């Protein structure tokens, strides 16, 4: 893997809230086709880090570069709006699920297609041929994705009526609908039972095999260790370790950070 191109490069990223250093000078890089995990105790700044990457927060210092492996174009993400970043090809899910609760499962995924389609007022009102074709494609593509994440039987259900695990999967499906090359998953297994988690692991592998790279935050160490190619560890806003699962597992700094916690759990 180490020879595939770097698609995300973060250099010296910092984010301060007033005097609090939520992220302090963090470097990270992700290569095409990798599954990378970001771990750390609660409050280590992982989600804040995601929010900086996806443009929800503006970083205080540092640079974020995203390179599209499909055309090799590199963009500096600092100060870009979240929707622009998604358009470039990095999509995310949320730790505290943010689906559109009263919209149907299908519609939730269709929203993901928004940034890859064009129809505006004219198309909406006149429903010309191009618009009709586009709409059909949106629906077909969304249905395919639902099949992949195993929600096609609940296609007409309202999103809020889904089980917790299904909602998490739907978030992944919705993010995939934006055609990303890099997918950020924020605690995708939180609240799932072991069976659901197993299915999730399979799903993530499948997504990765299709050519998407993945950066995930997760507390379930078993999942992290079995899934990740590389792991970054954060604590108190700083990156304290990085490496393969084996290297990280033996790193004394990591053990100290998780003091008292069962690392293998």
């Amino acid at each position: 893997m180490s020879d595939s191109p770097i698609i995300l490069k973060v250099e010296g990223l910092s984010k301060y809230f007033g005097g609090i250093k939520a992220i302090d000078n963090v470097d990270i890089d992700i290569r095409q086709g990798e599954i990378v995990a970001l771990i750390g105790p609660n409050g280590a700044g992982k989600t804040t880090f995601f929010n900086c990457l996806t443009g929800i927060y503006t970083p205080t210092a540092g640079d974020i570069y995203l390179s599209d492996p499909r055309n090799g174009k590199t963009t500096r993400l600092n100060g870009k709006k979240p929707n622009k970043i998604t358009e470039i090809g990095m999509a995310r899910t949320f730790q505290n699920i943010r689906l559109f609760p009263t919209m149907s499962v299908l519609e939730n995924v269709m929203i993901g297609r928004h940034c890859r389609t064009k129809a505006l007022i004219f198309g909406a009102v006149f429903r010309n041929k191009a618009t009709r074709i586009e709409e059909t494609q949106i629906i077909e593509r969304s249905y395919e994705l639902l099949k992949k994440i195993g929600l096609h039987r609940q296609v007409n259900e309202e999103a809020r009526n889904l089980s917790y695990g299904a909602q998490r999967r739907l978030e992944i499906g919705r993010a995939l609908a934006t055609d990303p090359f890099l997918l950020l998953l924020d605690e995708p297994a939180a609240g799932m039972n072991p069976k659901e988690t197993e299915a999730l692991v399979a799903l993530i592998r499948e997504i990765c095999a299709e050519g998407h790279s993945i950066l995930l935050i997760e507390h379930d160490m078993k999942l992290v260790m079995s899934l990740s190619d590389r792991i970054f560890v954060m604590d108190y806003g700083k990156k304290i370790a990085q490496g393969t699962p084996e290297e990280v597992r033996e790193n004394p700094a990591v053990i100290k950070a998780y003091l008292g916690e069962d690392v293998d759990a």
Partner: protein
Amino acid sequence: MFPVKELKRSALTSLWFAFLTFPIMVVKVDPIERVVSWRWDNMFFIAFGSFVFSILAKVFIIQKERRASKKKQKTISEPLVQRIVREPRFLYPLALACFIFGISFPFLFSTYQTNIMTTALMYVVLGLGLNIVVGVAGLLDLGYVAFYAVGAYSYALLNYNFDMGFWTVLPIGGLLAALLGIILGFPVLRLRGDYLAIVTLGFGEIIRLVLENWNDFSQGPSGIANIPRPSFFGMDMTFAGGITYIYYIILVLVVLTIFVVNRLQNSRLGRAWLALREDEIACEAMGIDKTKTKLIAFSLGAFWAGFVGVIFAAKTTFVNPASFTFLESAIILSIVVLGGMGSIIGVVIGALILILLPEYLRALSEYRMLAFGAILVVMMVFKPGGIISNVRRNYKFKGLSVVEGKNNE
């Protein structure tokens, strides 16, 4: 059936209201003649009235709870109205019947009735326009009347200064309003909900104040008179003919608006608006350009208001700033919320109720506004979703062939 404890509470409620309304209802002073009149009978009415009302409200609530608990097992059955609306086999004949009725209206009823109905239909279009902004996209706009004013003054001024005709100005008025919507929307749409509300309110007031103060431009508070009615291929029309003609224009506009709004709601754009209303951050993360999408909604709403504004000027043949106060915005907003946000039929019914009811309640003229305020409150308390809530078409998926179906809620 009715517990004694509740009776006691009702008695307390009535005592409370007797106390509450004491200075305003009972005491009346004449500061010049220095006489005080004590209207004790009012206190009795208030106490008695609030006692009865509170018992009625209790009974209503108890029954509602009972019904709700019964329905728990089954899925909640939809109200009749919503079922009819959802079923094409009911809807289409009904829509056709309405349309035929609409067309024959001027032949069935007097010119006066036609005129009133024209006003009501204007508010239908205004409501539908604001519905795009508030109901669908979730942007609270308290200054909608500003765009209405822009439309009305576009026609008045363009006609007065350049002798432009109704049909020429109709699209121009709409476009000017939409343009203004974009200019205003651009800086303010990034504000959070309630800040947006006050800024739009302020903007509505600014437009009115400018019209009031800038005499050279708008002729100030005395307004512009003798605005011509729309022409019909250059023919002169009798007075009644003119009213009927405007009625048909607005009827066509209503049909057009319903058509367009319906299509917009079921489009890529409409989905984005709905999503935006539910979760802005998730929307942005899904690649939706928040500002652009909101701006489109805002200016489309404005466009419709401008349109109706032109018709308003043509119908009234006179405009002055007094027609475009905050109360007008509040009424249009009430139409949207009362009818059911986001629901086209709801808004249509809401507009007809709110505009026709006061017109036919002339007999109660003094109590009209009192009743209007009370109805708004009672309606919201007992049915906060509006008359018809959430009749929205969702995409239903049947196998691989996609059919547009109806909502499942």
